[in-house]
């Protein structure tokens, strides 16, 4: 064995080359961890602003585990109101456009409590409400259940609008149709029905429906929509 030294050198080169992907992987992993940390950090920052006393916001929390407790936090006052028979759990945190009233998805009995709470707050101070938590799927189920019992077109229209906004056009179409069955003169419901059809790729059918609707209605918005669809 006379060529051991050159062989050793060759092996050193080989070893360096062999370990290169490992070093690259470690570097990439470090970058990923760093990126995750930075993303987390930037996400936490706006949440911190909620604790700012000058920020007008409402945090609505409903807990299914406790089952009978609803917490409504207004501003930083941490007011708690307990109500009975709440069956949903709020899971998602979704920003909602500022509204004057909190959308009520509970039984009428609870509505009173919720309304009272808001009214009570209004007495203290005029605030700008910003709901940052909204109902989960189970909340929609409750509204649907209520609709099947009472056939209130407001409930079905609410569901049609909500599903359309969420991009669930099949369900939006269904609930718009339910609304039309109860009251065929609700323009908004017809428009959601037609738009849902379009979003699902049934443009011709949507045009046909819209034309039928326009025969007995003079809705400007429907006309505009028809023109848009025909383009």
């Amino acid at each position, binding site marked *: *064995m006379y*060529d*051991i030294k050159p*062989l050793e050198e*060759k*092996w050193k080169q*080989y070893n360096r080359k062999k370990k290169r992907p490992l070093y690259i992987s470690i570097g990439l992993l470090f970058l990923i961890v760093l990126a995750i940390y930075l993303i987390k950090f930037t996400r936490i920052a706006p949440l911190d602003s909620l604790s700012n006393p000058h920020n007008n916001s409402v945090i609505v929390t409903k807990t299914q585990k406790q089952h009978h407790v609803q917490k409504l936090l207004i501003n930083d006052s941490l007011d708690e109101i307990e109500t009975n028979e709440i069956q949903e759990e709020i899971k998602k945190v979704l920003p909602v456009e500022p509204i004057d009233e909190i959308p009520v998805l509970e039984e009428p009995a609870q509505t009173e409590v919720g309304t009272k709470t808001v009214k009570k707050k209004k007495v203290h101070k005029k605030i700008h409400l910003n709901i940052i938590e909204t109902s989960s799927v189970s909340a929609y189920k409750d509204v649907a259940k209520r609709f099947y019992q009472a056939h209130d077109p407001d409930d079905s229209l609410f569901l049609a609008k909500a599903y359309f906004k969420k991009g669930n056009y099949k369900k939006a179409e269904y609930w718009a149709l339910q609304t039309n069955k109860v009251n065929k003169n609700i323009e908004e419901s017809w428009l959601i029905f037609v738009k849902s059809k379009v979003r699902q790729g049934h443009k011709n059918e949507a045009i046909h429906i819209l034309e039928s609707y326009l025969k007995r209605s003079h809705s400007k918005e429907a006309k505009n929509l028809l023109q848009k669809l025909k383009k």
Partner: protein
Amino acid sequence: MKSRYEAAKNVFIDSIDIDDYIELDSSVSAYRQLQHSIEKPLKMILLFGRPGTGKSILLNRVAEKLKHQKEIYYFDTPATNDKEFFHKLFKVLTKQDLPKNTEVNFSALVNYCKGLRGKREIIILLDEAQMYGPEMMEKIRLISDSRAVKFIVSLHKTEDEDLIAKEHFQSRIWEVIELHNASKEDQAAYIHKKLLKKNLFEIANSLKEKEMKLIHKFTKGNYRECNKLLFTIFEICEYYDKNEPSKINYDRVPQRIIEMAALKLGYIDV
């Protein structure tokens, strides 16, 4: 002072010595298959496989094991021309040397073989048969048709040799035995058994599962390549043992040395 690795290195000098034959599950199965085929009234048997899969050593073992039971002849090196081959065959069949300045008449040889039918059963093991040309193979086939001479033909499995196999054997071979490269387990057993056969227990023990895996990765289970790699590994170990003992771990062959041997043999490159 003699290094402990010197003996280990010599274990892996490539040879087809019957003493070096290692019984593995796969080789035992191939041997039994071949032995079983020999018992059948077949004219030709094809032993097929890539170089280094153990064809020659298997033929060698068959010749050695059956030499007292059957009339068996092992043609290890192929004849360079027809004349030489038929001289060899003449000697085997007639048990006489061909008189000087005479040549074998092929038709007469075939007739002679036909005359042996029922009287003798001669088995000829033809190693490296890819060296014989198509014309020669045709003649071998005609001799085998006499049913007095059975040929076991060992062929390398390469693209060209596949052609020979197809053209000359496909319709005539009654049995094909294919040998494959060793599995990881078989190769590890092969290395261990080889070392233990020479009482090199400590060295056998210094090749653990991880090292065996690496050796298999480099040699792809080929016995000839395995012998070459092991020889080089122990050659490097021997150098360190004699000159730089601090660089060697006696309990375990370092991965570095296996890779160095692989670099030397060109299995890997920088």
